[in-house]
């Protein structure tokens, strides 16, 4: 079994508030994990801490990614090692060309891997191919990063970037929120096409809806900063039908 990520007893605070309170998670290559939970349970915090965002104070626990201490690495160093975060709110960067950013990103990773940089022609070929899969037209690519994009376009752009960068571990933070059903299908297809035995996904989501299109291997319920229940696809359906309360009550009684 190829272990990609081990999170052990992770405790994280923001300011005075403790958000993650001893979280455990094991992710192997080839798996899709869904992390569900009510608002404020710490789902986005987990995604941000894994990607290396500033401002989170890790007070206990460890995170190992492909044998390395992930928490010691800068955000870009994590990216070079194949960790990708699909943002819940992708930011606009005026004047910075979408494709130029991606080319710089891809070549930074190539450089880390000791591979030659991708030349412009080869790069553009890949861009066209991946953009086609996401049903994005060329004008979309020539625009500045996320500038003037609709909510759905921004999310499609995230998956497009993921497809181009080909990460080993993709964390998608509420990628389904704000999407209409057509956009949701496009996004889900983008993810499904990339599934293979070398790559793992962590889908952070509030709703079961996304899981109709992307079949997870595991569903974890996060509450009060811990994984309180782990199951298969069926768990997501139960949550959809019954809400979170029964899981939380059960966890509280244990």
């Amino acid at each position, binding site marked *: 079994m190829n272990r990609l990520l081990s999170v052990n007893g992770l405790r994280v605070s923001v300011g005075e508030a403790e958000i993650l309170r001893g979280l455990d998670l094991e992710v192997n290559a080839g798996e899709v994990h869904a992390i569900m939970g009510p608002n404020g349970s710490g789902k986005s915090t987990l995604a941000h801490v894994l990607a290396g*965002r500033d401002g989170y104070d890790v007070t206990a626990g460890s995170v190992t990614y492909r044998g390395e201490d992930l928490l010691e690495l800068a955000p*870009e160093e994590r990216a070079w090692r194949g960790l990708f975060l699909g943002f819940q709110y992708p930011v606009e960067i005026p004047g910075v060309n979408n494709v130029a950013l991606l080319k710089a990103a891809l070549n930074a990773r190539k450089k880390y891997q000791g591979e030659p940089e991708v030349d412009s022609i080869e790069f553009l070929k890949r861009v066209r191919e991946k953009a086609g899969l996401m049903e994005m037209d060329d004008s979309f690519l020539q625009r500045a990063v996320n500038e003037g994009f609709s909510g759905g376009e921004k999310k499609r752009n995230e998956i497009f970037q993921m497809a181009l960068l080909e990460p080993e571990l993709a964390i998608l933070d509420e990628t389904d929120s704000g999407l209409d059903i057509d956009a949701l299908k496009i996004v889900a297809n983008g993810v499904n096409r990339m599934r293979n035995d070398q790559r793992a996904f962590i889908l952070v989501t509030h709703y079961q809806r996304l899981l109709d299109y992307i079949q997870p291997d595991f569903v974890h319920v996060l509450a009060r900063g811990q994984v309180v229940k782990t199951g298969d696809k069926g768990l997501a359906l139960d949550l959809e039908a019954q809400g979170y309360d029964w899981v939380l009550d059960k966890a509280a009684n244990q």
Partner: protein
Amino acid sequence: MSQPDQLQHPQGEQSNKDMRALVEREYKHGFFTEIESDTVPPGLNEDVIRMISEKKGEPDFLLQWRLKAYRYWQTLKTPDWAKLNLTPIDYQSISYYSAPKRRTDGPKSLDEVDPKLLETYEKLGIPLHERAALAGVAVDAVFDSVSVTTTFKDKLADAGVIFSSFSEAAREHPELVEQYLGTVVPYRDNFFAALNSAVFTDGSFVYIPKGVRCPMELSTYFRINEAKTGQFERTLIVADEGSHVSYLEGCTAPMRDENQLHAAVVELVALRDAQIKYSTVQNWYPGDEEGRGGIYNFVTKRGDCREDNAKISWTQVEAGSAITWKYPSCVLRGANTVGEFYSVAVTNNLQQADTGTKMIHIGPNSRSTIVSKGISAGRAQQSYRGLVKMMPSAAQARNYTQCDSLLMGNQCGAHTFPYMEIKNASAIVEHEATTSKIGDDQLFYCRQRGLSEEDAVNMIVNGFCKEVFRELPMEFAVEAQNLLNVSLEGAVG
């Protein structure tokens, strides 16, 4: 790195600390050239002015003009309306003339120029040997108070273009100088213009004859070298009917603890159907991180679209100087005239800049565009100050102004002072302004994709400035971008 060692809010202090580290920078042109120079003792009086005029072998009208300007200047007080904090300047402690010593009266060719001077310009990336020079760019190199040499003069002369130092023009083409000098910026214009008119030493003179498209980019490189001197350059560009010219100036100075004064005047005259494109990459020494030293840059730049269909375009990248006080402006006198102002100003540490433009619409259907991008970091303060004036005669005139400020960290300031005077009801004036912080969100987004923090900042800042950079002549767009990268280079947190 990812594990903050103290409790903090996600948008909090850690990132501000990173920002501060990011904007620390090194000034790469701060060296001093050891060269024997002929520097007059500090002090300003009519004898000093007579001496400057004599050293330059000027015609009498010029001396008389200088003296009138000096007498007028003595009646003036330093203007204090700009949002600048500066120690008063003691005008008697400045030396008003400094020139590298020469063996002969003036170098006839590059072979007679002191090799140390050539080396200085080489080091600044401005080779003066024509074979090594940037193809397609003629350079006038001004060192303290004098022009060292002007390249490609013969080639330009073939096209009828006059490109020389101002001093030489005053001797060789006094009629042109007399006809146009002070017609755009009269010596009574303002305090610094009056001072400059009295004591100006060198600068460039350009005349493009009727119908000629200048075959090369023209460029002047200003270098302050000697301590306790002021540089007072005067540039005059005249584009006769139907002619075109693109001109660029660059500026650097050694690092010193005391401030040095640079008070320049630039006058542009565009006659019927003529076009002048004037670009500046200003990188005077900005002072250190504690605000010690640096150049006080008080500049009056104005272009006159004197006849119909003339066009003047200012593009500036202002990265240096402790204090910048500068408003390149256009007087749109003729019908259908066009004025443009594209500006990127970067201030950090304790730099201050009060800069902008004035667009004076007199001619009917005159049009102007103002795009100003301000980047403030460290504890710097920056102001955009602009005037759009529509005179009663300016029927159907239009202006579009866009003013964007980017803040890095939370100790700097950006201020906008737009003035509008509309005296013609058919004129249309638009103004847009934004202020944003270089987002932690934007930085994190780029870094998550794999860019280093420094690359991410450069990419974001260059994106912000894109609309201005694309107005620069191609050779200099790259230089400007690199300059910005250097300006924001530093230890990454």
